[in-house]
């Protein structure tokens, strides 16, 4: 039994890295823009399909392909913001973004169906079916690489937010949009770039998701509720919190799976409720994030 629990914890940590990659963009976008991006799940799948096209058509390695898919997804993010998000104003803006981003999700899903069809595909490379044997456990290389990528991206986004002039603009906008405007920050530009960065990060999440799961254009809807739970538990707007929450939630789910796979999902959401009762702002709530 001890071995099974250990295996479940290892699985939870590694799968948590994949979910952190998928959730990072979502929490960044909410933290800065107060936008609940319901399209995040479909954007993950879009990122996976971009990697799929590069891999199958141009035979570009999945990780090397990120050098292309991340900028492409950044542009897509900026375009989505320009076309759909920037027009939303007023007190109902946050609620309206739910509807607008859901519409974006439907549009992207429809395009993916048209381009790729309904059949499932998956991303393959030399490392997607191999593993490393450590302390009696087989660790799939793709999960190991995915976890490392998650940590690297979290650090990179922190560096962007706290070590650059653009990051100061972003944080100023997070703290008080009106004051940021008054000191000369182009808030619209910051918002567009932040949305673009949030979507760009999702390219990495999509690639690792597609390398660990077969997917089709509809697969994104299964992800979004979990991603929202993760960013709430981690603290809205906190990239590091998203990583911590992903690992926590997936470890809990994996361990419960040993006894009852059917209860694992219920426990996943029960953990969210329990933690929020104790700490309503999540692991690293926005108040704490803004105070950093």
């Amino acid at each position: 039994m001890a071995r099974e629990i250990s295996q479940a914890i290892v699985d939870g940590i590694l799968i948590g890295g994949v979910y952190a990659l998928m959730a990072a963009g979502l929490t960044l976008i909410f933290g800065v823009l107060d936008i609940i991006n319901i399209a995040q799940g479909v954007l993950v799948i879009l990122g996976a399909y971009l990697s799929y096209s590069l891999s199958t058509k141009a035979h570009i390695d999945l990780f090397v392909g990120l050098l292309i898919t991340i900028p492409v997804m950044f542009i897509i993010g900026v375009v989505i913001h320009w076309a759909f998000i920037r027009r939303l104003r007023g007190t109902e803006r946050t609620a309206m973004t739910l509807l607008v981003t859901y519409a974006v999700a439907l549009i992207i899903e429809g395009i993916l169906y048209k381009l790729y069809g309904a059949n499932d595909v998956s991303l393959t490379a030399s490392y997607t079916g191999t593993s490393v044997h450590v302390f009696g456990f087989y660790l799939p290389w793709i999960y190991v690489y995915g976890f490392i990528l998650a940590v690297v991206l979290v650090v990179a986004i922190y560096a962007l937010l706290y070590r650059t002039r653009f990051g100061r603009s972003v944080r100023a906008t997070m703290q008080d949009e009106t004051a940021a405007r008054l000191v000369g920050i182009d808030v619209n530009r910051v918002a567009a770039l932040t949305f673009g960065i949030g979507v760009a990060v999702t390219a990495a999440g999509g690639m690792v998701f597609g390398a660990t799961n077969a997917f089709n254009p509809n697969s994104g809807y299964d992800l979004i509720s979990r991603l929202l739970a993760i960013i709430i538990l981690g603290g809205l707007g906190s990239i590091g919190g998203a990583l911590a929450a992903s690992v926590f939630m997936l470890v809990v789910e994996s361990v419960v799976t040993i006894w009852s796979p059917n209860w694992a999902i219920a426990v996943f959401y029960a953990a969210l409720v329990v933690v929020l009762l104790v700490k309503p702002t999540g692991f690293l709530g926005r108040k704490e994030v803004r105070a950093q």
Partner: protein
Amino acid sequence: MRASLPWFSRNVIALSAVALSVGVLAACSSSGSSSSSSSTSPSASASASSSANTTPISIGASLSLTGDFSADGLAYQKGYTLWAKDVNAAGGIMGRQVKLTILNDASSPNQVVTNYQTLINTDHVDLTFGPFSSLLTTPASAVAARSGYAFIEGAGGAPTVFQTPQNEADHNVFDVSLPVADEIMPFVNYIASLPASQRPKTAAYPMAQDPFADPPVQLAQQKLQALGVKTVYSNIFPAEPSSYTPQADNVAGKAPDVVVLGSTDVPTVAAFMKAFETNHYTPKWFVAAAGPDQGAAFITAVGAGNADGMMVPNGWYPGYNNAQSQKMVNEYVAQYGGTTSDVNADVAEAYSVGQVAEQAIVATGGTDNAKIIAYLHSGVTLNTVQGPVKFDSLGENGASAAFMFQWQDKGTKFTQVLPTGAQGSVTIIQKSPWATS
């Protein structure tokens, strides 16, 4: 100012509620009002030898054109459309053209109910054909029963479909395909036929929570246990967990000789195969309830090398030795392209639904649903691309034969392997090592 804690707390609570419910919302919304209607236009003139009634026969169906079952739903759409095209090209049924109306249920059990209500009460279709999956057939057939419609379907083979109060009272469901509960029995019988020394010692039974996937796996478990095959893992998991890896790792850790996976789709099978591969564990026999029957779609997702030795139960495959079947396969390839291996069993199931309806309409002289229900329960044997169809009192096809199919020749050939003595069966092989082993 928006950073005050009370605002934030309220929004965290609200967002928590959103997170907990958005999955449901997304599913409901995605299954919402978007519908497509495909019609086969009644262009050909009615046959001169038939009755004066040349009004098109309107047939309605709800299919999962988007959502979790979309791959199967789209294949079903092709099957229904291909049948209607063939019938209309031959002058229709009794001189009446067939007009198909297909609505999209987005794989939602709620939307499928709405769609059949629309088809029956608003569109007033003459006949209804079934949706994809037992999960959707059960609620859909209840709608048809309330209006006295026969419900001829090909993808609702789970016991739960036939054991509803409506069907036990109205007997309106007719499944042209193989009943799912017994579908893994050819494999059980094969194991029973082996000398004791060659039989597997252990088996694992991971199952997705689904009325289609669980019954055959549970029956196989019961029968294999009776043969002395020790169960080392038996668990039902949610159809869409965060990841299949923990369950698959659990199975791999126990290294059973046999894995019988209660899967509903390709991603579930692919996830278990990938986890087994990274654990350097290869079962001697690997049976999946669904997934490997998806032809090229399965190979694309898992790779041909890894598919070698994978088994799946079914009642039909593209190489099925039946003249009607071969004609349909050739027509499919001519119309949609690809190769014969691209034609999955969904197409044949859907086509068979049309064939059964066609024979019932001709035999009863029209589209009176009461007469059609009585006719289909009369014990008559009908012919389809899947072979003979004969319904029992609950509408299960008692004439269908269960086969086990296997990917062989490094995943390039999908072939019938069980029952061993059946016509067309080739020698079964043990699961080949994974491509990276």
